[in-house]
C-alpha cells in the first residue's frame, strides 16, 4: 500500500458534489501536484487530507493509519497556505518555533531546529524580523520552514506561489522542489498553473469537475493527454476536426488533404468526424514537404510574442497555430502566404474524450 492512500473519497457541500469517488496512492517522498481550474475539487482534497474538511465518504490513510477520527491538530501534517498565514504577532523565529513549542520540545532542541530550518530557507539573518517587514517571497519561505519544523509526515502546499510575482514564483518553486528532494518529504501541491505543475512534480493529477481526468508524469500529461480537457488545459493546443475516409487503413482528411495516421483510429466508420490534437510547437515550416506528416494552408495571422512567433493558418475548416522561436535572421510568414507545416507522425494525437 502507498504511504498516503485516498480511497473512494467523496465530498459534497449541500447538493453540490465537489469530489466524486477519488482514488489515489502517493508514495513516500513523492511530489504530487493537483492541477485544475478553480472549483475542480483539488483544494478540497488537500483540505480533507489536512482534516479541515470531513469527507462525505471514503477513507484517508497515512502510513497505514486511518485519519478518520483525527482532528487537524493530531495529524502531524505541515501546511503552507496561499496567504502565507504567518502569525503577525510573532517574529520569524517564533513562527518557526510555534509547532515545536506546542509539541513541548525542550528549549535547546527548539533553538537548534529553528536554526536548521532558517538555514534551509537561507533566512538566518532575518530571524528577528516580523512578517510585515518581509517580502511575500520571504514570508512564504518562512511559512515553509514553519510547516517543516515539526517534521511532519506529509507536506501540503495550497497554491503557495499564486500570490507572488512572476520572477519570484519561478525561483521559489525551484527552491521548494530542492528542499523537498533534500528532505525526501511526501508532498501534495495544489495549483492552477500548468507550467508550475509540469516543472516541479513527480506526478500530476489533472482534476476536472471533481474527478481525476488523468494521473501521470509531467511528460505523459503533456505529450499523451488522455482527454480533451487535459489536452486543452495543459499547454496550448490545436484541435483539428478530421473526416474518416477509411477506418481500416487509418486514412482521414483535413480539409482536402489526406493523411494516414499511425495510431489506429479504433471503432469509427467512414464519414465520422474525429478530433486530432497538434501542439503549436510541434511543427516547422518546410516548403515542398508532402505526405502524412505535412499540412498546407493559408496564413491568416502572424504574431510576434517575443521568444516565439505564433502563426495561424487555415486548413479546411480548422485554424492551426504554430510557433517558431524568434531569431534575428528569421522572416516570419506573411498573411496570405501558403505555407506547409511539417511534423512527425507521433505529434498528431487522436483525442478520444
Amino acid at each position, binding site marked *: 500500500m502507498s504511504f498516503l492512500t485516498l480511497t473512494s473519497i467523496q465530498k459534497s457541500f449541500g447538493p453540490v458534489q465537489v469530489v466524486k469517488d477519488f482514488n489515489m496512492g502517493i508514495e513516500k517522498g513523492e511530489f504530487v501536484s493537483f492541477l485544475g481550474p478553480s472549483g475542480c475539487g483539488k483544494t478540497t482534497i488537500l483540505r480533507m487530507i489536512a482534516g479541515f474538511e470531513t469527507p462525505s465518504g471514503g477513507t484517508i490513510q497515512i502510513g497505514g493509519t486511518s485519519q478518520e477520527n483525527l482532528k487537524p491538530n493530531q495529524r502531524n501534517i505541515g501546511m503552507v497556505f496561499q496567504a502565507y498565514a504567518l502569525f503577525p504577532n510573532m517574529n520569524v523565529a517564533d513562527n518557526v518555533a510555534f*509547532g515545536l513549542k506546542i509539541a513541548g520540545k525542550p528549549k535547546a532542541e527548539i533553538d537548534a531546529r529553528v536554526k536548521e530550518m532558517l538555514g534551509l530557507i537561507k533566512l538566518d539573518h532575518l530571524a528577528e524580523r516580523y512578517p510585515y517587514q518581509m517580502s511575500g517571497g520571504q514570508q512564504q519561505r518562512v511559512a515553509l520552514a514553519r510547516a517543516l519544523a515539526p517534521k511532519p509526515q506529509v507536506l501540503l502546499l495550497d497554491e503557495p506561489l499564486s500570490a507572488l510575482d512572476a520572477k519570484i514564483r519561478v525561483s521559489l518553486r525551484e527552491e521548494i522542489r530542492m528542499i523537498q528532494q533534500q528532505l525526501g518529504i511526501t508532498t501534495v501541491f495544489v495549483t492552477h498553473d500548468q507550467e508550475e505543475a509540469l516543472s516541479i512534480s513527480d506526478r500530476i493529477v489533472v482534476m476536472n469537475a471533481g474527478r481525476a481526468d488523468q494521473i501521470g508524469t509531467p511528460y505523459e500529461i503533456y505529450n499523451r493527454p488522455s482527454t480533451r480537457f487535459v489536452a486543452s488545459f495543459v499547454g496550448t493546443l490545436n484541435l483539428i476536426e478530421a473526416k474518416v475516409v477509411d477506418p481500416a487503413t487509418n486514412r482521414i482528411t483535413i480539409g482536402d488533404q489526406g493523411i494516414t495516421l499511425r495510431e489506429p483510429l479504433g471503432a469509427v466508420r467512414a464519414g465520422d468526424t474525429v478530433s486530432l490534437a497538434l501542439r503549436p510547437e510541434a511543427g516547422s515550416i518546410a516548403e515542398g514537404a508532402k505526405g502524412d506528416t505535412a499540412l498546407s494552408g493559408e496564413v491568416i495571422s502572424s504574431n510576434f510574442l517575443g521568444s516565439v512567433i505564433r502563426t495561424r493558418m487555415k486548413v479546411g475548416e480548422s485554424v492551426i497555430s504554430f510557433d517558431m522561436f524568434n531569431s534575428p535572421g528569421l522572416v516570419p510568414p506573411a498573411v496570405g502566404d501558403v505555407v506547409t507545416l511539417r511534423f512527425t507522425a507521433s505529434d498528431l494525437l487522436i483525442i478520444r474524450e
Partner: protein
Amino acid sequence: MSIWARIAGWAALIFGLLYFFVPLGGLFEFSLKARRGVYSLDAYASVFADPQFQQTFGYSVIMALVTIVIGILIVVPTAYWVRLKMPWARPYVEFLTLMPLVIPAIVIVFGYIRLYNTSSWLPLTGSVMGTNILLAFGYTILALPYMYRAVDTGLRTIDVATLTEAAQSLGAGWATILGRVILPNVIPAVLSGAFLTFAIVIGEFTLAALLDRPAFGPYLQRVGANKAYEPFALSVIAFAITWGCLALIQLVSRFSKTAPRKA
C-alpha cells in the same frame, strides 16, 4: 476640477468643524467667567470640591469598567466564532448589534423594570446591587454596537480562518489558538472598543436617571438645572474625558498600525 466644487468641499469640511467646535468654544469661554470681569477657574474648583461630583464620577467609572468586562466576555468569543464558523450568521449578528442604536434606551429600561420588578421571579430592582447589575447590562446593550464593530474590525485585519488552520496544522488546540494567535492580534481593537464604551457610559443620562442610580450623567443634568457656571465647567470636563478616550483610541490604533500585528 472646478474651483467651485473645490470650494464647496472645503466649505463642507470647515462647516463640519465649526458645527462641533463653536458650541464647545462658547461653553469653555463661559465656564471661565465665574468671577466677574476676569477669566478664572473658580467654576472648576467648585465642581471638583463638590463631594457629589466625586461620588457620581467614581460610580460611573466603576460601572464603565464593569460594562467593559461584560462586553468583552460577550463580544470577543462571539465575533471570533461567527467569523470562523458561521459566516452566514454575520449579517444577523450585525443586525442584532445594531438594534441598541435604534431601540430607545427608554424601551430597554421599561422592559427591565417590568421584568425584574419587586414582584417578579428575579426582583433585581428591589435591591441596590440588583439595580446596579441591571444598569450594567443596560450599558452593555448601549455599548454593544461599538464594541462588536471594533472587535469585528480588528478580526477583519487578520485572516482568522487561515491563521486558525495554520495553528491547527501545527498541532494547536482551541485554547492555544485563542490565547496565542487570535487575542494578541486583536488587543488594539478590544482596547478601542473599551475606550468607546467608557466614554458612552460616563456621559449616559437616560438609563441612569430612570433607574435612579447616582451616576455622572444625571448629576450633570441636576447641576445644570440649579447652578450658573458649574454646569458649563462640568460639560467641559465631561468633554475632556470623552476627548481623552478618543485620543487614546487614535493612539492605540496608530500604535497597532506600526506594530507587528498589522502585517
